[in-house]
């Protein structure tokens, strides 16, 4: 069996599960984000009274933090009331950050667990060796009542990534390249394990970027074998004791795809599909109105650090806006401590509240018709960040920062060179 199958077997009280089988599994932790007031209504509608375990359910206010509309404020209000009435142990209000960042930070994520959230990017937690998956409101309400969910045991495909990236090339470029090559439906209903020499020693933040975007290939969940960096991260934040599960030697992947990334250039997903990916060197001239660094994909300290390297002591192009939203308050504090916030604000960046920001078009930087945004987030569907007539280019935080500086989509490697003096068209 694969580790993911062993996780499902453990959680459903079985010795063995097989692909395609439907199992009822116990959920180790569940999270509801602030788009999902419906979960509470459905919980009561289905006869719910007390949640199955007050230590294992949390709400995270991230999509509407702080609230932009009266309706969103009403949602938060009703959710807070529920959290209080149910006496939930964990609660993340508007002063926390994006769910996929604050959950690992707070120590509720550990290798071998099943984590279910009302958010498709729950695949992110494969970075920690967890089985993370997203569901809708009604499924979540059934978990809130019973602590269980039905799963179809998925086929597992292997995406093997070997080599080391060059300076200026980030994990985001690697996953965009994989996505562009394999397409946005290669893993529908399947699980993805990422393997290879690139993954073996990869840091926690980079692992999260790659697993985060596994869902853009349709994956139900993703998995990476925890390395020492992951184990250290988890042990520093959680008292949970767990056994590290191993995939059996005779397990066979449904399919294996191999990539070698040593010569990879920065990548860009062009409008309006995540898999419409080309190399930065082939991108035509694009004037950028807004550059955005943030979200559960590109808002970690490593991302803000990369932006600082590019923008320190410089000024962004006066015709471009740069919005930076740390993924969590912890990230925000770290960025302040390291002096990044100061440098970036001096360079002309606009900082906003930790949370999802404009990622899904709710607030804090939505786009007008005809505008262009280069973004470190994960989706560029029409209308994702405001107007359906705006264009979104997905790229790494380095590419976003470099583009804010020049006012057009640009290869960040040019700006990371010490001796390179970029002349903006405005002087």
């Amino acid at each position, binding site marked *: 069996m694969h580790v993911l199958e062993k996780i499902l077997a453990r959680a459903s009280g079985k010795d063995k599960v097989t692909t395609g089988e439907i199992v009822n599994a116990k959920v180790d932790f569940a999270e509801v984000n602030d788009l999902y007031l419906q979960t509470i209504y459905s919980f009561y509608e289905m006869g719910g009274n007390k949640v199955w375990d007050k230590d294992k359910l949390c709400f995270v206010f991230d999509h509407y933090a702080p609230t932009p509309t009266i*309706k969103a404020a009403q949602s938060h209000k009703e959710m807070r009331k529920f959290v209080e009435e149910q006496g939930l142990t964990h609660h993340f209000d508007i002063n926390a950050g994006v769910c996929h960042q604050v959950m690992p930070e707070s120590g509720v994520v550990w290798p071998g667990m099943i984590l279910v959230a009302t958010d498709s990017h729950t695949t992110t937690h494969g970075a920690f060796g967890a089985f993370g998956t*997203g569901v*809708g409101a009604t499924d979540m309400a059934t978990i809130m009542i019973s602590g269980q969910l*039905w799963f179809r045991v998925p086929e597992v495909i292997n995406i093997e990534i070997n080599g080391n990236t060059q300076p200026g090339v980030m994990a985001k470029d690697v996953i965009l390249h994989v996505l562009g090559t394999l397409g946005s439906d290669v893993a529908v209903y399947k699980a993805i394990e990422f393997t290879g020499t690139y993954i073996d020693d990869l840091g926690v933040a980079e692992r999260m970027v790659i697993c985060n975007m596994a869902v853009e290939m349709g994956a139900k969940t993703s998995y990476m074998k925890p390395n020492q960096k992951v184990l250290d991260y988890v042990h520093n934040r959680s008292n949970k004791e767990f056994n590290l599960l191993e995939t059996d030697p005779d397990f066979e992947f449904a399919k294996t795809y191999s990539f070698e990334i040593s010569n990879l250039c920065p990548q860009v997903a062009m409008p309006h599909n995540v898999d419409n990916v080309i190399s930065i060197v082939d991108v035509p001239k694009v004037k950028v109105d807004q550059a955005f660094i943030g979200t559960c994909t590109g808002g970690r300290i490593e991302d803000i650090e990369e932006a600082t390297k590019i923008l320190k002591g410089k000024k962004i192009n006066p015709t471009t806006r740069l919005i930076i939203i740390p993924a969590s308050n912890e990230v925000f504090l770290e960025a302040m401590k390291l002096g990044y916030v100061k440098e970036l604000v001096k360079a002309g960046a606009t900082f906003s509240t930790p949370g999802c920001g404009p990622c899904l078009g709710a607030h804090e930087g939505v786009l007008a018709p005809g505008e262009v945004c280069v973004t470190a987030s994960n989706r560029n569907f029409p209308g*994702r960040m405001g107007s359906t007539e705006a264009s979104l280019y997905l790229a790494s935080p380095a590419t976003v920062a470099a583009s804010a500086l020049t006012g057009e989509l640009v290869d960040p490697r040019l700006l990371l060179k010490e001796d390179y003096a970029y002349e903006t068209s405005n002087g």
Partner: protein
Amino acid sequence: MKLVTGKAYVYGNNIDTDQIYPGRYLDLVDPMEIGKHCMEGADASLVKKLSPGDIIVAGRNFGCGSSREHAAISLINAKVSAVVAESFGRIFYRNAINLGLSVLVCSDITKKINNGDILEVNFLEGYVKNKNSGEVIQGEKISDYIRDIIDSGGIKPLFKKITSNQG
């Protein structure tokens, strides 16, 4: 939700949930209001054209993207009776089943249906009949587990049974 007849509106691949239901309306909670924005990101004119019972036909990966249940809720409240697609995004598929929206996987369906054709969809048997061409197109049969949910009228009635038995 077993046998429905209606006019087909045909779309391509990768119609994601932002196109089915744009994020800027996620703070709406009234199902009728949610229905008014159905498919707005893909085809803003659709809602005005739809008659109750009409059917959406799509290519691969319909409903990919976010987990928002609003996507399924908007289709139901716009009175779409079924969605037939070559494949579905996983979370959308679960949401649809849970809420009682008929969703049928039928490979190559977009090649066999023209916009405006009248279709009969038999969800439990898993086939589509094109009344214009007479062709019957076999799709995937649903699993027993999903049939259970549907026979109960969606996951909510099924769960109500369980919670009321627990007293």
